[in-house]
């Protein structure tokens, strides 16, 4: 059985899913109001009853895996539990039904929460100024690099055209740097999976604008020489950016600003528990050191004489990066989360995220190759290289995990580990859940020896089996056509 037919196949002329009020002013023909030449002839939208709409989307929802349904160890994505109270407070009508262009004096509630969120982020990261405007992590990276670029222009260093990224970096890092007009130099990771200081030193010169570094990195390892790295970068006159995707590992233990980073972004939808929403909306606030604060996007939320206001008087700003002020309702959720946890709670988050990851690692590193087999932070990268020798790929293991009721780990990244299985349990999972997952992984490791076919043909009990992605890309069908 299919998940459900498309919404278009439910359409029947004359149906509608909601009633609207009658016109309460004298009616004038629309032709008269705007002229027939400006009107469309046909509006080819579907026509459905409310029952159809609700049943259709309920059926679709049932074909989704989600955090509320089960364990979702998707590495680098921090799929932690999304507290329900955060949804409730962010949806309060006083926040939801607020037009963004009212006078500041009429928006003191939202502005106060935004300001507080900025302050909390400063406290957690150690930086001096924050913008909430970037709508996602990738846009946070982009904003931070623009801030660097503007700074370099201001101090006569506009000739710096290169950004250095390690080969373990997330794909958004190089893509973002290109978007900012920079050329990319990739440096290879050292034997221990961390930045190789001599490779970095060799790559640094007067042309380099910035280094982008994820810490802990995408292998789940803390860059132990981070202070030396930052010093090296600064000596070369360049700036260093922290991709904060993995902040869930170090809250209360380490603040990136203290080790020498100049700027960072946070993913509120990872570390600060806001829902991933099937791919968004996220939120990617950027935090910077004092000397970069003037360049942050306009407007920013500020406080003066007990009045919160949107500060547009920022002559050195890079400008706007969003139509309004960012994904404000997401920031409200993160604010609620931080207020729930407090300093002690956030440290416990990182304690348990790291504990859970190391526990999984300790139980899985016999059955699976772990290229950098040492203590990890909040996640680790295993490899299916042993299973590959038996004809079983990381992809097959991922698909088989679905049969056991789990969302698979990340397998398309990091690129420096062949057949990568990037596993991030988060702190919101219990030992019982982890034990059951471990059992499934061990069973799969055995199956790869005894019954590889069951892996290669997985998943078996899903609404659809493996899908033909090659044909989808070669002959794209990107919308429903009635035929």
């Amino acid at each position, binding site marked *: 059985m299919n*998940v*459900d037919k*498309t919404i278009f196949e439910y359409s029947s002329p004359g149906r*509608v899913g909601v009633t609207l009020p009658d016109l309460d002013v004298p009616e004038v023909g629309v032709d008269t109001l*705007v002229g027939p030449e400006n009107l*469309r002839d046909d*509006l080819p*939208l579907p026509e459905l009853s409310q029952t159809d709409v609700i049943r259709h*989307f309920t059926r679709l929802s049932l*074909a*989704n895996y*989600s955090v*509320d349904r089960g364990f979702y160890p998707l590495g680098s994505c921090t799929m932690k539990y999304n507290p329900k109270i955060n949804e409730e*407070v962010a949806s309060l009508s006083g*926040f939801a*039904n*607020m*037009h*963004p262009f009212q006078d500041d004096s*009429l*928006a003191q*509630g939202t502005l106060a*929460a935004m300001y507080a969120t900025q302050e909390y982020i400063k406290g*957690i990261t150690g930086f001096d100024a924050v913008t909430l405007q970037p*709508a996602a992590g*990738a*846009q946070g990276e982009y904003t931070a690099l623009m801030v660097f*670029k503007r700074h370099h222009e201001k101090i006569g260093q506009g000739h710096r055209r290169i950004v250095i990224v390690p080969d373990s970096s997330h*794909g*958004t890092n190089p*893509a973002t*740097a*290109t*978007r900012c007009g920079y050329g990319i130099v990739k440096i290879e990771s050292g034997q221990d999976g961390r930045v190789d200081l001599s490779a970095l030193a060799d790559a640094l010169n007067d042309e380099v604008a910035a280094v982008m570094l994820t810490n802990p990195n995408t292998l789940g*390892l803390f860059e132990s020489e981070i202070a030396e790295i930052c010093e090296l970068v600064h000596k070369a006159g360049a700036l260093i950016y922290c991709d904060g995707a993995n902040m869930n590992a170090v809250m209360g233990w380490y603040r990136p600003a*203290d*080790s020498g980073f100049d700027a960072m972004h946070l993913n509120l939808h990872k570390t600060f528990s806001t*829902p*991933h*929403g099937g791919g*968004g909306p996220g939120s990617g606030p950027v935090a910077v050191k004092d000397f970069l604060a003037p360049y942050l996007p306009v407007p920013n939320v500020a406080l003066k004489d007990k009045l919160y206001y949107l500060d547009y008087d920022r002559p050195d700003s*890079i*400008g*706007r990066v969003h*139509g*309004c002020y960012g*994904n*404000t*309702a997401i920031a409200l959720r993160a604010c609620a989360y931080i*207020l729930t946890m407090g300093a002690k709670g956030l440290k*416990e988050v990182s304690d348990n995220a790291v504990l859970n990851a190391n*526990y999984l690692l300790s139980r899985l590193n016999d059955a699976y190759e772990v290229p950098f087999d040492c*203590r990890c932070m909040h996640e680790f990268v295993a490899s299916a290289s042993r299973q590959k020798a038996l004809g079983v790929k990381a992809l097959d293991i991922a698909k088989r995990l679905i049969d056991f009721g789990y969302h698979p780990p*990340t397998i398309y990244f990091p690129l420096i580990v062949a057949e990568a299985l990037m596993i991030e349990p988060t702190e919101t999972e219990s030992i019982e859940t982890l034990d059951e997952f471990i059992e499934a992984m061990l069973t799969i490791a055995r199956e790869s020896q005894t019954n590889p076919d069951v892996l290669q043909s997985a998943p078996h009990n*899903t609404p659809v089996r*493996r*899908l033909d992605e090659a044909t*989808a890309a070669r002959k794209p069908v*990107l*919308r429903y056509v009635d035929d």
Partner: protein
Amino acid sequence: MPYIPNTDDDQRRMLESIGASGIEELFEQIPADVRLQGDLDLPSPMSEIELRRHFANLADKNASTDRFACFLGAGIYDHYIPSTVAAVLGRSEFYTSYTPYQPEISQGTLQSIFEFQTLICQLTGMEVANASLYDGATGVAEAAIMASSVTKRQQWLVSECVNPAYRETLRTYAWATGYELTEAPRDGVASDLSKLKGRIGEETACVIVQNPNFFGSIEDLGEIESMAHEKGALLVVSFDPISLGLLKPPGEYNADIVVGEGQSLGLPMAFGGPLLGLFACKQQYMRQMPGRIVGATTDTEGKPGYVLTLQTREQHIRREKATSNICTNQGLCALAATVYLSTLGKTGLRQVAELCMQKAHYLADQIDGIDGCKLLSNRPFFKEFAIKCPAPVSEINGRLREAGLIGGLDLGRFYPELADCMLLCVTEKRTRDEMDRLAEALKQ
């Protein structure tokens, strides 16, 4: 901690398996000299009861549409959201999932995006749409960058009648990417066509206009289309999706890329975010589109299903050669739009558009006769129009507030020559009584 299940005993068992003496030992990778000394500087934790009260107090400090009738628009609109939208978005199968990397267990998200893409094509008259971008403003910037990669030209031309926040975002992106942005002036409340034409050259990658424009007026898209295409530039149109319930869609004007703010389609205003960037283009430019795209395919048993597709455009494959750095879409917001458009459908959306347009014209008529007020809009408009006020806009808006109304946007903020001018918006939610009260307040 309600969100951390590990007990002391659990922790002890796990540490034993790891072979560590304590949690501290797991953090040995962090050298002492970069470790935080002491605690994070944060307020003491709140219980659910305290948190609920804290946020309720904050929410009460906002002048929301619970207490005021809103005549403010300018890109973010107070449209009605049918109850079906919250019902579907509240399902945690949707909101606690992530980007559908594993299609076998993500068909709900994937199929809804496929339906979203289809609905956006139906609405705009375009051939392909993506899974959405952050918002209308960044969508316009993405369109411009895409136009440059299609045409291999370096200049973007934008009409002054495009939303000022979009133009500011364009300016930021143009500077960062190294493209050149030029603005074409307005003539009253619409683009000055002869000046626009004069600014389109051999290096113009795209002509960017908005319809209805920032002042609510309907632009002469047919004319602008020929000007742009004559010089080999792409036509980028920013649209209001609600207006397309009635107005001729940009696809029928032969637009190349269209972008819209989708907030009107079932999202609360939420002080401006999250929003929803709608993005569609001609089929021939499909492979240069930014953002996620979902395509239909079949599984190993021949059953229909959906996958993320054309991924070789994207950062996780192409890295520095990607068409954009965008990683996700606005997933849940796109779902809201999908449910909204499915609920209203052909009849409902047309009705919403017609209610907006009829009521806006009613209010404009009421105001036009008032002493000291003048309607600046002398061309066809949809749901917004500009007026000259008898007093500074802040003063007028203060007066309106006392009458329980949120007044219009002070146009002088963005167009200094339009001091004392206000942009008013009327949605289907406004009643005759509210509009009469607004007109009454202007008479004082």
